[in-house]
């Protein structure tokens, strides 16, 4: 992978901090393990102390004392405000509209923000069988806002995904709206190069670059001829306080932040 980040931080750290900044204080967030979990904890320790973290296993208001390896670790339960069954999580919380933000990832993200986490190749005769939906089909449909975190690579950004696990804007914003689905769809894709946001038609467009990254890098690492916003902003540099929090308190062993 093309490595655009400066030696002061890894690509994962860059994505994590930029994802954290998208969260608003008081947001109710449906959290997955890994980077989303780190981003939420970072936001909670900085500008969003009232963030509510929900895990699909049925945990509300978790306060993990250490970094959980799995999405159902016991440390998520100890000190949580509420625990309920998965049926309740998907109905009372997600389907009812009580979730503001869902974080999504996947093997492929396409031009209209559709996500594939299910299969490469033909569904019935898979070339690569991926994990499948888990909770992400409903998250993509029903969270008020979705954020996608993914490294910027050509194979991860094909023009059209092989299979739609979570809906972005399908073939365009109007197609999604026609289904009557409640959530607003993907709002931002955070990559290690910058931020992509849907245009009025739901097509992903480069709207911001991280410091030191270029439009060329984005074009080279995207599988279609990506639109560039008329004004491409630059994201704020990572603060040393953010990096310190991440490295020393949230992921001291570097399980998710090390490497690229």
């Amino acid at each position, binding site marked *: 992978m093309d490595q655009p980040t400066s030696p002061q931080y890894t690509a994962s750290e860059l994505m994590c901090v930029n994802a954290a900044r998208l969260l608003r204080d008081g947001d109710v967030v449906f959290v997955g393990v890994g980077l989303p979990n780190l981003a939420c904890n970072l936001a909670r320790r900085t500008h969003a102390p009232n963030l509510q973290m929900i895990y699909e296993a049925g945990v509300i208001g978790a306060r993990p004392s250490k970094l959980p*390896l799995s999405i159902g670790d016991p440390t998520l*339960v100890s000190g949580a405000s509420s625990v309920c069954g998965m049926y309740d999580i998907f109905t009372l919380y997600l389907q009812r509209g009580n979730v503001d933000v869902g974080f999504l990832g996947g093997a492929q993200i396409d031009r209209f923000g559709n996500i594939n986490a299910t299969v490469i190749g033909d*569904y019935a005769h898979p070339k690569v069988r991926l994990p*499948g939906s888990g909770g992400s089909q409903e998250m993509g449909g029903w969270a008020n806002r979705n954020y996608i975190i993914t490294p910027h690579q050509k194979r991860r950004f094909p023009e059209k995904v092989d299979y739609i696990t979570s809906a972005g804007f399908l073939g365009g914003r109007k197609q999604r709206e026609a289904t009557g689905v409640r959530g607003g769809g993907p709002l931002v894709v955070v990559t290690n190069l910058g931020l992509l946001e849907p245009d009025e038609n739901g097509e992903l467009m480069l709207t911001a670059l991280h410091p030191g990254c270029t439009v060329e890098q984005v074009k080279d690492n995207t599988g279609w001829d990506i639109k560039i916003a008329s004004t491409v902003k630059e994201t704020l540099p990572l603060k040393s306080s953010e990096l310190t929090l991440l490295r020393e308190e949230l992921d001291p062993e570097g399980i998710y932040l090390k490497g690229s």
Partner: protein
Amino acid sequence: MSKLCSLKEAISNYVHDGDTVYCAGFTHLIPFAAGHEIIRQGRRDLTLARATPDLIYDQMVAAGCAKKLIFSYIGNPGVGSLRIVREQLESGQLAWEEYSHFGMIARLQAGAAGLPFASMNQTAAPDLEKNNPNYRRVKDPYTGREVVTLPPLTPDVGIIHVQRADAKGNAHIWGIIGEQKEVAFASKNVIITAEEIVDEDIIRSDPNRTLIPELIVKAVCLVPHCSHPSYTQGYSDRDNSFYLNWDKISEDPAAVKAWLDEWVYGVKDAEEYWQKLGAETHKRLAVKPKFAAPVNYGDY
């Protein structure tokens, strides 16, 4: 009427070749010891249903117990791929039926509730519906909009590990409660494995904590540490290093066979498995106690 029996007897009496089996538990309370006993008893042609197959089904599939998988997420939670299941799906050796987590849980809820179908709002994602004919639609009779439906799931056997149960099968569960209640009420036969068998007065001192009532339970088995390498809230920690380790073992069929020979076929039961793990592992997975605030039900 006591339903106490050994896990060996329970599996022998209630799990038959060709059955649909649901070993319950989302990351938490996964009844590994029951899966191992099913392997030891050589069950075949099972349909294995679980939201997340986890390592337990990877092992059962490796041992040749399964003909079909019903699932909503196949991964080694927190680690990556579930190699054996994945290979068998890719090679067409294992049949499958796939849902989202919500679809899976909604099917169980409909089964538990005695409803002919589960209803869900549309998600706008088309491909699960397209590839699984169990997904259908009905018109909401109030707005005319379409709602997605699934048929109930009613496993032949549901196996549920709990912190404590009485001899009749009334069971207290705390911590993550994923789909345990739904599996219990949806299944035709329910096997309870428990860390502790307690006097019914303990259960009845806190009836709101009873997730599973005796009247739907067929067998109750005392199986401490049944959930290893998963965990039991308050009793043990998750053995994350085993999950990481399995990622390596499962790369190599010979290593998998050796592991099964040593840890499943090579031990008599859950107790022998646990002892074999050794004092260091026991210590590593031990948990310091932390109690819930007292709850006063009153003496009425």
